[in-house]
């Protein structure tokens, strides 16, 4: 039986464990190494690929990812969806207090409440977004990317509604009179803040978090020269310049990188291979 396909299949399967941004380079290294391994040892050699990929995944997760900063936009939305579902279940299943039986809300009531809250939240977020400034470099980002970014923002706002409403219900049930409304207000503000900041920390093209921030310039040059931080997209889509103090002549700016830069980014290679 010809088993030459097996090591390659094992490497391909193990590559799914490796983090997406590093997957292409990881796979390339293992495939290269496999070239030098005798055929009768290839399967045993490839078993180690699973351990290596798992190490890479674990190491990356502990250093770069977290509940508040999920790497991919899909993962972020999935996390929010799970949290929303759990909060809806918790709020609908908890027994009502004797003094306030109207707090016993059914799932349908909660969902209706979310729909009612959505326009209000949207208005607040829209006002905050306008106050913070529009998206950086709208002229250099394609309409498709802008639509995707807008959709991601909208989905986050929608998924935040059950968290806000159920959080309010749970806090009002559990808390005492002056503390509970304050906690509700504070948690809503923090959630709004996270939604806006998460949007600003992502690449406007692929929506993955911008990484490797570096300081550019010196604080004494805030007036006549540019001073701030520069972050980059791991997939090589561009660089985000964020000034230390936003002025009329110094705003957040997105510098688009063309495909000639892709060789410098591991993530760009991964994207090409897809």
């Amino acid at each position, binding site marked *: 039986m010809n088993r030459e396909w097996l090591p390659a299949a094992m490497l391909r399967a193990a590559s799914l464990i490796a983090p997406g941004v590093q997957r292409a380079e990881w796979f390339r290294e293992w495939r*290269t190494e496999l070239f030098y391994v005798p055929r009768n040892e290839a399967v045993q*050699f490839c078993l*180690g*690929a699973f*351990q*290596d990929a798992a*190490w*890479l995944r674990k190491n990356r997760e502990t250093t770069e990812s977290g509940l508040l900063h999920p790497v991919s936009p899909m993962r972020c939305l999935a996390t929010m969806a799970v949290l929303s579902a759990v909060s809806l279940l918790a709020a609908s299943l908890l027994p009502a207090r004797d003094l306030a039986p109207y707090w016993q809300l059914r799932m349908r009531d909660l969902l209706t409440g979310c729909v009612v809250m959505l326009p209000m939240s949207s208005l607040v977020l829209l006002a905050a977004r306008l106050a913070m400034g529009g998206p950086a470099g709208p002229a250099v980002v394609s309409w498709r990317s802008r639509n995707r970014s807008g959709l991601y923002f909208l989905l986050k706002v929608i998924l935040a509604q059950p968290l806000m409403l159920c959080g309010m219900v749970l806090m009002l049930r559990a808390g005492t009179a002056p503390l509970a409304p304050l906690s509700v207000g504070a948690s809503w503000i923090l959630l709004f803040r996270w939604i806006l900041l998460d949007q600003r920390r992502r690449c406007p093209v692929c929506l993955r978090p911008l990484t490797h921030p570096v300081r550019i310039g010196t604080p004494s040059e805030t007036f006549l020269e540019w001073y701030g931080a520069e972050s980059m997209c791991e997939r090589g889509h561009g660089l985000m310049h964020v000034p230390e103090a936003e002025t009329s002549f110094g705003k957040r700016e997105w510098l688009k990188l063309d495909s000639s830069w892709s060789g410098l980014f591991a993530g760009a290679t991964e994207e090409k291979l897809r």
Partner: protein
Amino acid sequence: MSGGPGLSHTAAMILQAISAGYVYGYTVMEVTGLPSGTVYPALRRMERDELIVSHWERQSAADAALRPARKYYGITRRGINSLDAARKRYPLLGKLTPAREAQQA
């Protein structure tokens, strides 16, 4: 694994192998006798801790030799210091890996 005294015996063996000129993953495996599931994660850990650095061979050099481009590992100054400390801790370390001329990177 940040300093010399904290280097495990396995990591010290791998570092010793790289120092002796076994500069890519499979040769490190061969000379140390360690399995791939130990060697490659250890290489990544040591690279993260800046004991070693890696770089890809130029594609033209690999094409000339009719083989895929290799990823080479090299020991850093910090790695040399850690290895010196590990040699004091494991005196037979140097005898485990025969010296080999460093391959062209």
